[in-house]
């Protein structure tokens, strides 16, 4: 088996006195789409924040392509190829769609490459090209999510982490975004998707990790997880 792109070993983290993650271990293979599912408040967002360096790990390791990045700063981690699309889009108010996308490429200096990737984002989500001069926060929810994902791609990451792709979106839009995600993945970017909507996550991802109260409860191929009676009971309502 090839070396995993992202490998997490025994990771614990939290805020102040409150520990949120307990001894998390998981691995994401290069080229795949993996997902992390679990209920509200289970620690999924904290896990992504710890990977991207926003939250400090109290113990354990995060490795990217074999390199330990646990104590690395946020910008360094982005430089190593991990982009994090945060929960709730978090687009910059007062800046246009184009400026928001360009901020995704903040660390890059290859103007030709940036222009090419901007074109790629626009081809992926043509509506963004139409609206490129508009204040990004005036877009509809679905368009904002497209912009947020596009902004993530603009750093040309090896691994794209998306927190709650489907949050607050109509099912049709979720489907549209899922297709785009598959397209992005085909272009060679590994994806780690965090979702509360287990159905959507299992549909697009190959491997899944179930997080319960800050621990990895179950993991495996999503098609197996979808058949697991406990998961069907707890998350699929069947």
């Amino acid at each position, binding site marked *: 088996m090839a070396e995993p792109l992202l490998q997490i070993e025994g990771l614990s983290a939290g*805020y*102040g006195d409150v520990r949120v993650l307990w001894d998390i271990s998981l691995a994401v293979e290069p080229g795949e789409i993996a997902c992390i599912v679990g209920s509200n408040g289970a620690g999924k*967002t*904290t896990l992504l*924040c710890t990977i991207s360096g*926003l*939250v400090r790990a109290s113990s354990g390791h995060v490795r990217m392509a074999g390199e330990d990045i646990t104590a690395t700063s946020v910008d360094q981690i982005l430089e190593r190829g991990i982009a994090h699309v*945060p929960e*709730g889009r*978090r687009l910059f108010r007062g800046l246009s769609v184009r400026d928001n996308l360009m901020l995704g490429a903040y660390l890059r200096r290859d103007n030709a490459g940036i222009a090419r990737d901007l074109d790629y984002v626009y081809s992926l989500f043509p509506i963004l090209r139409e609206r490129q001069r508009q204040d990004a926060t005036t877009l509809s929810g679905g368009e904002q999510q497209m912009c947020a994902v596009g902004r993530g791609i603009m750093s040309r990451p090896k691994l794209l982490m998306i927190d709650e792709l489907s949050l607050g979106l109509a099912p049709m839009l979720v489907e549209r975004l899922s297709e785009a995600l598959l397209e992005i993945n085909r272009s060679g970017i590994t994806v780690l998707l965090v979702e509360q909507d287990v159905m959507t996550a299992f549909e697009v991802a190959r491997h899944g990790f179930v997080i319960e109260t800050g621990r990895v409860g179950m993991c495996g191929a999503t098609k197996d997880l979808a058949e697991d009676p406990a998961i069907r009971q707890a998350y699929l309502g069947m």
Partner: protein
Amino acid sequence: MSDTQRYVAFALWVFALASTPLWAENYTVRMAILIAMFTALTLSWNFIGGLTGYPSLATAAFFGLGSYVGALLQGAGAPMLVAWIAATVFVGVLAAVFGVIILRLRGHYFAIGSFGLVEVLRLVISSWGSLTGGGDGLNVPLVQGGPNAVAQTFLAVMVVIMVIVFVVTVLVDRGRLGFGLRCIQQNEDAADMVGVDTTRFKVYAFTLSALFCGTVGAAYASWTGYIDPTDSFSILMTIKVPVMCLLGGAGTLLGPVVGTATFMILEEIVWANFLDYNRAILGAFTVALILFLPGGLLRIDYRNLVTRFAARPGRSGAPA
């Protein structure tokens, strides 16, 4: 430290200040008067800035207003004590009115709004020359007696005011009001949710923080015999008072007392020895305090309310 120990410590301090005429020369007595006066001001500020967590910069507004009201009444022939009490009441009422208006602001905006009070009142007083003498200032009838007797009188006055504010602080702190204010300081929205009438409580705290500044101002005017707008509405005072409180520990009972004493004694030493650079040294001291002693001398407390983590969107709702 138990509450009883705190009271004993405070009583000893009161005794030390009050007894200065017995064992020290005039210079020290004057110092004791100023310490008692500023302690009353910091204890007052503690109601709004410490207990409630609102960064008020209005101390000088109420001090100045009190001194002018007291001076004008005395000038009009009112007995000294009556003038002081009237000044206290007047300032209290006005503070309640201002409070209703500016306590809707939070954070920086509240700080500016409260600071704006100082500026606006100073400008009004200096513009209203016909009543206040404008920039020329105002003379206050002098207290009869030799310098020693006058000093002893005002030492007694300031110490009594200081003790009164301390006692009020203890009463508030132990009662429903103090509990509610602490809730507001910790999380104003949550306080609202458990049934604290936050607007009313904040106005109470603001009024309490103003009342005794008015008394102190009026007494100060009688003591010095002359006031002017720049001195009464002093920007330095309005910032020094919170700094002293932070130094001791905001929101605590003894913090303002310890902070004021430490700060003023240090300031005096600096003044005496480095005349040219006294402000710079004061500044360096303030910077060092913020960087190395953020919780004050007594305890680290107010910092806890800002342990917000980076990933929360925008600014959290906690009163900062």
